């Protein structure tokens, strides 16, 4: 430790400032550069916006996941929560445009409730969050399929899909949603006492309890925020994805991978909003790149597995 610090003390200050920047921004630039080199079409405004629009659900989800990760847990239920919400809304609305806002409100409510249940199970029943949220995944997946009779039924009106599909002055609405959501999350995480307590709970729950932090309450709030992000992601996703029983598949692990890429440390205590949004974008761009290079889709799982293991091994090594 001391060797490094004396070494870096002699380095020019400009390099030090460079080191203060999160590495994910360089990774993002490198991936986007590789993408543009492989297919110059991504330099155009239209495809670029399309890419951003398609990655917006993941960006929102990753920020929600960040809250849970900072608090020291995981939320593996978000993917099936998205599928559940899309199936239920399609069933409920069945193309009726008037009820769309009611349906979006319902999504938010269900998302918050599901998150609250996860949080309650983890903090009061002391079930490890991976197991609790995997159980919730089964419940939501089974529940969605049960209510829709095993296949996707009904359809979503354009009013419901507007958030994820429309543009204002050529600028996707979904990106505005991401910016607003990201800004609110940043304020909560970095500028409120709740945010500080979240970091405390994640880095040392015992110390947090002893210093009077309501650990259970903070944990539950983090899971509720993740549920909320899943609800928003579901409406954004419905803008370009069809109503299907696999709409949200894999999103839970993508959200975790994105958060990890953005420098969030699994099992708690570290991570910040904007690098995580960049991480989500980088992951989506990486998947696009793999696609351009002709890798089959399941290779994405391999990449994510490697990202998760390497990131955790790296942060374990630094400790």
């Amino acid at each position, binding site marked *: 430790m001391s060797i490094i610090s004396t070494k870096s003390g002699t380095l020019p200050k400009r390099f030090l400032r460079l080191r203060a920047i999160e590495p994910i921004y360089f990774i993002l630039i490198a991936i986007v550069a590789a993408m543009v080199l492989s297919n110059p079409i991504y330099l155009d405004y239209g495809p670029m916006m399309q890419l951003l629009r398609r990655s917006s659900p993941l960006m929102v989800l990753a920020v929600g996941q960040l809250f849970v990760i900072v608090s020291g*847990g995981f939320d593996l239920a978000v993917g099936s929560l998205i599928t559940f919400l899309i199936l239920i809304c399609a069933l409920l609305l069945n193309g009726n445009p008037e009820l769309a806002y009611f349906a979006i409100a319902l999504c938010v409510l269900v998302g918050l409730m599901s998150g609250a249940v996860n949080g309650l199970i983890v903090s009061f029943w002391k079930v490890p969050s991976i*197991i609790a949220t995997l159980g919730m995944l089964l419940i939501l997946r089974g529940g969605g399929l*049960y209510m829709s009779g095993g296949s996707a039924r009904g359809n979503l009106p354009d009013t419901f899909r507007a958030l994820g599909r429309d543009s204002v002055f050529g600028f996707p609405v979904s990106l505005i949603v991401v910016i607003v959501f990201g800004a609110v999350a940043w304020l909560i995480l970095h500028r409120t006492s709740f945010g500080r307590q979240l970091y405390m709970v994640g880095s040392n*729950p015992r110390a947090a309890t002893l210093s009077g932090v309501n650990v259970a309450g903070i944990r539950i709030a983090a899971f509720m925020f993740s549920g909320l992000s899943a609800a928003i992601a579901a409406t954004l996703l419905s803008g370009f994805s069809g109503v299907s029983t696999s709409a949200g598949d894999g999103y839970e692990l993508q959200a975790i991978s994105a958060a990890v890429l953005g420098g969030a440390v699994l099992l708690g205590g570290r991570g910040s909003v904007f690098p995580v949004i960049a991480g989500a974008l980088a992951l989506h761009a990486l998947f696009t790149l793999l696609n351009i290079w002709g890798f089959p889709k399941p*290779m994405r799982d*391999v990449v994510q*597995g490697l990202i*998760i293991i390497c990131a955790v*091994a790296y942060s374990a090594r630094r400790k």
Partner: protein
Amino acid sequence: MHSLIVNLGPRVRWRRILRRVPPIFWALMLMLLLSVPLLAVYSRAGGMSWAFISNMLERSVTLAIVAVGQTFVILVGSVDLSVAFVISLAAVLASFIMQGDPSMIAVAVPLILLGGALIGVVNGVLVTRLNVNPLIATLGTGLIIQGVLNTSFQNFAGSVPREYQQLAYGRLLGLPAPIFLLAALVALASFVLVRTRFGAHLYAVGGNKEAARLAGIRTTRVIMLAHAIAGLLAAAAGLFLVSRLGSGAPWVGPDGIYDLESIAAVVVGGALLAGGRGGVFGTLAGVLILGFIDSLFNQLGIDPYLKQVLRGAIIIAAVAVYSIRSREEVA
């Protein structure tokens, strides 16, 4: 210790043996008894019978094999979430290598078992040498296996020969062969845990890793070996599953929720997720309880999707019943 037991009178000895039976076994017996009237009224297939029990046992064998492996890793305070994908891998490779040819059985089985053990060793290296949290490490290796498997196979691949299906459908002494398989596995695993030095080391490492290390136990090696056993038994479960199904597909493992169910079974059997406590008989009881609930749902004709909801709730509740008393904060 053992000589003490021998010197006591026969009645005390019996009581000792009875006390060794995990309490969860009595719960299982009670559930079986209570379900008799329930099934008599609502069942679609003629109520409680020997056929019901034997069917339940047979269906539980795959889960039992994985769960015994899971017991080893949970005992040392680790866990293996990659088992479901190892099962898929083993099942697909078995039917792909055999292609209906009986002469390939002798090639495929050892190869696949070795592969499973190797995956377990990789998990063990990640957990011990690289200090990756076991839940995350095995989630990651599981993802990698799933990706590779889905890239290479999109559907049922090949088939196993009829001779190989005897493993699942053959009969011995008028009883289904898998029941003997199960009994042999449980006896062997229980022998390893209770009677060997390695078994004692497992409990010691799980109980207090630092103390075990100071007492001269090579903790890294013990944890690594536990993971290798879990991988090996997951592969064995896949080999058994494919003899039931006749052919393997990439989704057979995840569809059976073997990762979560095996953990739930071990925990229901009285093991601590933190390690150091648990045993094969408890795990067996846990497996039978889950299998019993599953058979019960089938007999009552519950919708398969609703069944999935109930399974999720049961797994959470089952783990919660045991973890709720822990005063430690969990992640």
